């Protein structure tokens, strides 16, 4: 028998290491972002759209501004004056900070209320009146690709459809030939639905801009402080916030699972308001906002096929994927599809050939396709490949494990 444990005196292998961070966590002395309190800090709450797709006709903040303690109500038109109303995503797409005329998904940020405490900010949010002209949303990616579908991203010059990108890998010709001549072929359609990471701590930040030193300190619950700093500089570089003037502090973080990689509009609004007022701005989303408006994982429609012999030898596989990325392509890494989908999809079995293609499409939903727990299209690929393997085995009358 192999002894895979060193002696107690030596320690190391087979012995648990005690964590250094426990001391603060078990005594309530951790610092999560909502624990950060700065002098003169103001609170922000966000007015959100009840519609998935609508024109904004008017925003009336007068009632909100009458509430003692409400300092300001910020809209897309206000940010537009500073060219801060759009920002890039990690996939080089663009995303609204606050809309100037159209909302693209339910619960999208429409205006921000700044107040002296979070209760007053919440009351201010309730008092902002927004007139919408609802339009028919597209929530099905197949309908979104139909020729008669309206172009959702009409902000993009020359855009004539809702297609985002096409990606393919493998030997199409060889794969198709194997399928054409195979004794047994099977096909399975599957939908891997949207899921939300639901980390136990919601997202939030404290943006603190120091006017005298022209320096921004961002406390935020983020998994990607460096990428975030770059994005902030891309959004706000033109008003003087270049990368070296930004410090992102990611304190203790109550779970992320990929949902704390993206830049959410709330962060940018908080920065903009701190930049304009000079006061630190705290924004902490509540659970409803977190579940409705943060980025989602998955939402993939996959048609997976397998070809083989009557004896049960697998010869080839073919995937066609439709990825519902919501109204903007905000997933975290362009290499995801080749690394995950193809490598995992072809890694477990001995194929003669394989071909996979994927198309991403816009719909009236929050961003989709953000990683969740080793997602990188791995989960989707494993699910698809094992399901078609089971189906193939059943068809040829074998145990799937053989």
């Amino acid at each position: 028998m192999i002894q895979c444990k060193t002696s107690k005196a030596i320690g190391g292998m087979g012995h648990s290491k005690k964590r250094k961070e426990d001391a603060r966590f078990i005594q309530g002395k951790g610092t999560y972002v909502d624990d950060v309190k700065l002098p003169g800090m103001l609170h922000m709450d966000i007015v959100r759209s009840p519609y998935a797709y609508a024109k904004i006709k008017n925003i009336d903040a007068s009632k909100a501004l009458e509430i003692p303690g409400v300092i300001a109500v910020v809209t897309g038109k206000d940010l537009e004056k500073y060219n801060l109303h759009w920002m890039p995503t990690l996939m080089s797409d663009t995303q609204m900070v606050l809309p100037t005329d159209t909302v693209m998904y339910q619960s999208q940020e429409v205006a921000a209320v700044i107040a002296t405490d979070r209760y007053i900010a919440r009351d201010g949010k309730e008092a902002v009146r927004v007139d919408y002209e609802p339009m028919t949303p597209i929530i099905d990616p197949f309908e979104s690709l139909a020729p008669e579908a309206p172009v959702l991203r009409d902000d993009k010059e020359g855009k004539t459809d809702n297609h985002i990108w096409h990606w393919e890998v493998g030997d199409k010709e060889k794969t198709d030939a194997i399928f054409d001549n195979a004794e047994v072929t099977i096909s399975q359609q599957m939908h891997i639905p949207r899921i939300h990471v639901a980390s136990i701590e919601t997202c939030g930040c404290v943006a603190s801009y120091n006017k005298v030193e022209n320096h921004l300190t961002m406390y935020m619950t983020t998994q990607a402080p460096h990428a975030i700093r770059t994005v902030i500089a891309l959004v706000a570089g033109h008003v003087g916030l270049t990368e070296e003037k930004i410090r992102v502090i990611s304190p203790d973080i109550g779970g992320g699972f990929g949902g704390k990689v993206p830049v959410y509009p709330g962060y940018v609004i908080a920065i903009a308001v701190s930049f304009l007022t000079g006061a630190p701005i705290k924004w902490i989303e509540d659970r409803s906002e977190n579940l409705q408006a943060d980025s989602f994982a998955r939402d993939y429609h996959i048609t997976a096929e397998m070809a083989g012999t009557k004896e049960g030898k697998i010869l080839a596989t073919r995937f066609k994927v439709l990825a519902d990325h919501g109204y903007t392509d905000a997933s975290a890494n362009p290499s995801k599809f080749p690394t995950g989908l193809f490598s995992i999809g072809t890694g477990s079995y001995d194929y003669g050939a394989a071909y996979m293609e994927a198309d991403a499409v816009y719909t009236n939903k929050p961003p989709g396709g953000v990683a969740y727990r080793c997602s990188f299209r791995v989960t989707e690929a494993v699910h698809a490949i094992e399901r078609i393997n089971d189906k193939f085995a059943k068809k040829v009358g074998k145990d799937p494990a053989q």
Partner: protein
Amino acid sequence: MEITLTVNGTEHTVQVEPRTLLVHVIRETLSMTGTHIGCDTSSCGACTILVNGRSAKSCTLLAVQANGAEIITVEGLATTEGLHPIQEGFHLNHALHCGFCTPGVMLRAVELLEKNPNPTEEEIRWGISGNLCRCTGYNNIVKAIQWASAKMQNKELPSTEPEFV
């Protein structure tokens, strides 16, 4: 409204609105930020504290409902003698990862062990059913509570070394 709370042995008189949640008084007025807000709707248990010895979800209690109450938060678990056995148990058994749910689970466990000093694994699992750990470390949380149970009864302590499968 003016209310008085005794938190971890210290009496505080504070002004609140009727709608002010107990968790906000603890976190913001009294600056004890070890009690967390996770779900906001009494589902996750991150805001669990003890109110007159009973575990309670402080995001679903109005501060005025707790007027006059004795409250224990995570900051009140350790004494000058050292950590509470439940805190030791969590540390030694790796029962936490991000730490956000930890204070709530520990306070829930304190009441559980008070009522039932020697719970079975099933009783522990039912006992913490109001606390979510999104890092899903439940197995070690159960072990930590078992460890604390043994320690509080001066019994032989279970091993905290990892198991080889």
